[in-house]
């Protein structure tokens, strides 16, 4: 406890790393990083570095694990031994097994499992460097990797956490806030605003809880936007070379070249200049917004499904 900072939020309302209370750490994602995997994604979120790989649908052994009418999803969350300051013992432990289980369930509402009876989809989420919020980072990466693998999904899922420090709710905890804060509350939202994962550590008042859900939802929507852009940009370079014929020749050629260079990684804003794409974005957001009121009604139903511990917390 010796490292505990005296104050988490300074007099200007900024956090230890200079963020606003509702500001996320910068996120960067890259698709198709593992050549032998069917789908993969490397994601950096602040100091978190996560690699997700998806294999399948493929044949499942042992056969007794096969489900006759649906595909089995296996999710392995693993922290590399070198991912934290003190080396951790490699291999699954109680924490990683639990996170694997809840993360797997976070994808259940979106993945169409009935299409591949008896097969398996393996998802490996490897944490290379950890700095609080690795399970949410892993889910975000896995969601992209699943899309990259061509797995049919009703939509992407996005995850982020809200916590409490100095009696103030903050979005996307960093290491110090996670270790010494008063609450950590990771949530996963599907595109329709359904909650597919809720965990909680610490205390919230009822009022804070409601506020935290809203903050999380907003954060997840931002992440969703970034995920969508990263997916669109993966092939943007290749496709824009074709659109050259139709539109302004010189400008597009330059753009296409620059796209080739960064391979659809990094800066999403830079590439998204195509008119149709930005229109799509507008459509997407309006769609999500239209669903928002629904979410308020759905929420009570979702809570009991998702995690055991939080109803008690809420009343406490």
């Amino acid at each position, binding site marked *: 406890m010796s490292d505990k900072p005296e104050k988490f939020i300074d007099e200007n309302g900024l956090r230890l790393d200079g963020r606003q209370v509702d500001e996320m750490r910068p996120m960067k994602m890259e698709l198709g990083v593992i050549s032998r995997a*069917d*789908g993969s994604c490397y994601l950096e979120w602040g100091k978190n570095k996560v690699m997700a790989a998806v294999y*399948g*649908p*493929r*044949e*499942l052994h042992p056969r007794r694990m096969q489900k*006759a009418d649906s595909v089995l999803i296996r999710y392995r969350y693993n922290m590399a031994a070198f991912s934290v300051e003190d080396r951790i013992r490699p291999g699954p432990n109680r924490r990683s097994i639990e996170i694997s289980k809840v993360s797997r369930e976070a994808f259940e509402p*979106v993945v*169409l499992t009935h*299409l*591949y*009876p*008896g*097969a*398996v989809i393996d998802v490996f989420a490897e944490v290379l460097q950890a700095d609080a919020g690795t399970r949410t980072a892993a889910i975000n990466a896995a969601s992209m990797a699943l*899309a*990259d*693998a*061509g797995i*049919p*999904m*009703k*939509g*992407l899922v996005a995850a982020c956490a809200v916590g409490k420090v100095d009696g103030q709710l903050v979005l996307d905890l960093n290491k110090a806030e996670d270790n010494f804060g008063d609450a950590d509350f990771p949530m996963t939202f599907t*595109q*329709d605003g359904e909650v597919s994962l809720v965990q909680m550590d610490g205390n919230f008042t009822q009022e804070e809880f409601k506020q935290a859900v809203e903050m999380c939802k907003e954060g997840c929507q931002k992440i969703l936007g970034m995920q*969508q852009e990263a*997916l*669109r940009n993966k*092939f*943007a370079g*290749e*496709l824009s*070379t*074709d*659109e050259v*014929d*139709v539109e302004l020749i010189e400008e597009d050629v330059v753009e296409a070249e620059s796209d080739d260079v960064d391979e659809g990684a990094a800066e999403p804003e830079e590439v998204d200049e195509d008119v*149709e*794409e930005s229109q*799509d974005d507008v*459509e*997407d957001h309006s*769609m999500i917004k239209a669903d928002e009121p629904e979410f308020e009604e759905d929420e009570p139903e979702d809570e009991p499904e998702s995690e055991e511990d939080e109803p008690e917390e809420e009343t406490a």
Partner: protein
Amino acid sequence: MECNIVIPGQFLSDDAGKSGHGTYVKDGKVYSLLYGIMNAKNKMSVIPFSSKYIPSRKDFVVGTVINVTPSNWIFDIGSPYDGLLHVSEYPRRVDSDKMSGIMGISDSALLRVKDVSSSMKVELSMRERGLRALKTGRILEVSPAKVPRVIGHGGSMVSMLKKETNCEIFVGQNGRIWIDGTDGNMDRLAEAVEMIMEHSHSSGLTDRVCRFLRNVSDDDSENDENTQKGDFAEDEEDECKVHGDACRTVDALLDAEDE
């Protein structure tokens, strides 16, 4: 625009009747299930960028024997599900003790999917013209999602490849391509297929691959061969004008596949 990159959960249409392959309907609206290219020809459908081969009836596939049982050959067909070839589906009558003499483990064959049950039991057949156990040639593997590009619009790519390389080609829906010819020709063909994979999203592909193959064979070029190729190139150009746009070309290919 008719073509576009779509991602899972993206809104596609207000008309639930337009839901095609790779889409789903929710509250009367159509959304995408896959990450791929949208085809809005008559129904909204999404062609994924990558996918595993899921067998369906009447597909042609290239399989490799992984086991021989008293009445079945079990084939790996590059999918999550193995295929079964019953002895009775072999063109000739075979005694069960001679089965592994005809096709043993690691032998390959050209096959057709006879039926797929709801639990994904895949029954194969060899009782059709052109289907046989393979003794010579090579097998190339490509992504099943890109098979339509190798076949080309109305088979244009395959026939061009055949003509340019003098190889025999069989393209399985499972992404396995069997080729047979002289070693040099097979090398060229393998390179051409690699090129198709690399540039699968760009337009005028048949034309480019054709040019590529001709450049490689420039050293031993002959006059009459060139005229032949010239005719061919014209055909390709026409096609490129009609389907100037890459995605629409992809769509057209896939449509041709469906028919």
